[in-house]
């Protein structure tokens, strides 16, 4: 019976310079990969030698204001050993580019397109790097933290357009810990400054 931790150690033994010590949180193992350029090589080994035949998801996080700005997390799973593993890497805004893993798992195709669409990170070598949710030609990357929730006006004649959404004092934020459902209800407030009191 193999465990995620054993598999993580085997991966680390193969790439000792690249991979950090496994961090455990609530039974889940996370490895940090220091060089984004090495991710296809690491993933290929994880799939072919360690049996991670299923790429569950690739996610991206925008730490706006920090450097490096972006985090990517690759969620791996193997149907042979039923062990999950998470690989994380940091990517700077200046670079905003990393090699694709579509050569390892074909499932990465749409995950990478979504990250390109929402975060603006480009995957080198991707077979078909188009936007997947917004239309082709949309000029922004809407899940970046510096993009307003209501959106920005755009116009591409005969293709599409957008207008900012009316937020009426929002965004509507719910805050956990209110004493009743009325206090916990989503209301227009700035979470950092308004604390538990709704904005007047």
């Amino acid at each position: 019976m193999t465990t995620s931790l054993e598999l993580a150690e085997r991966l680390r033994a193969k790439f000792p310079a690249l991979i950090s010590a496994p961090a455990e949180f609530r039974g889940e193992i996370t490895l940090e990969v220091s060089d984004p350029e090495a991710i296809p090589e690491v993933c290929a080994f994880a799939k072919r030698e360690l049996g991670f035949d299923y790429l569950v998801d690739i996610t991206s996080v925008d730490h706006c204001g920090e450097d490096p700005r972006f985090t990517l997390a690759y969620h791996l799973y193997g149907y042979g050993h039923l062990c999950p593993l998470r690989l994380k890497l940091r990517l700077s805004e200046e670079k905003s580019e990393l090699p694709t893993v579509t050569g390892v798992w074909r499932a990465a195709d749409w995950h990478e397109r979504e990250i390109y669409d929402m975060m603006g990170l480009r995957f080198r070598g991707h077979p078909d790097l188009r936007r997947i949710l917004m239309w082709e030609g949309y000029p922004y990357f809407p899940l970046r933290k510096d993009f307003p929730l209501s959106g920005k006006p755009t116009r591409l004649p005969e293709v599409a357009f957008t207008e900012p959404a009316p937020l009426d004092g929002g965004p509507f934020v719910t805050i956990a810990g209110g004493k009743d459902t009325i206090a916990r209800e989503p209301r227009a407030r700035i979470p950092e400054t308004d604390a538990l009191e709704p904005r007047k």
Partner: protein
Amino acid sequence: MQTTTEIGYNSKVEGDVVVTRLDAALNWCRKNSLWPMPMGLACCAIELMAAGASRFDISRFGAEVMRFSPRQSDVMIVAGTVTYKMALAVKRIYDQMAEPKWVIAMGACASTGGMYRSYAVLQGVDHILPVDVYVAGCPPRPEALLDALIKLQNKVAREPLIATLKKVT
């Protein structure tokens, strides 16, 4: 030899004639055969399907001919969230429908954007189409859609059809 002479009341003629206004007759034909263009975009489309199925049975009101063919449709039922990516496709399909045509905005999203105050969602399909009836609800029950259809029928029945036709020609 007896000859038949009809004086006054002519039963042959009277029995087969209904006196009405041409407007009313044509509108009666139209309103009882509104073919919908089911523009199903989200969960409202499930309720739209329920309205078409046996329990609610939209064919009681002559609107059961749901085919994905805008050129044969009279009323577009926009059922669901209209994203900006879909918006001009919806507009294009509306433009392909032959006159006369009507639009029902079914549910909160199609009417106002609903809970999606977002960069990605059109804040009401009335930004791009002339909507005749709005249906509240998230999603509305099939009864609400049937009510909207009856309201639309009443609206169609009141349309000054001949005057409009004269204006066009």
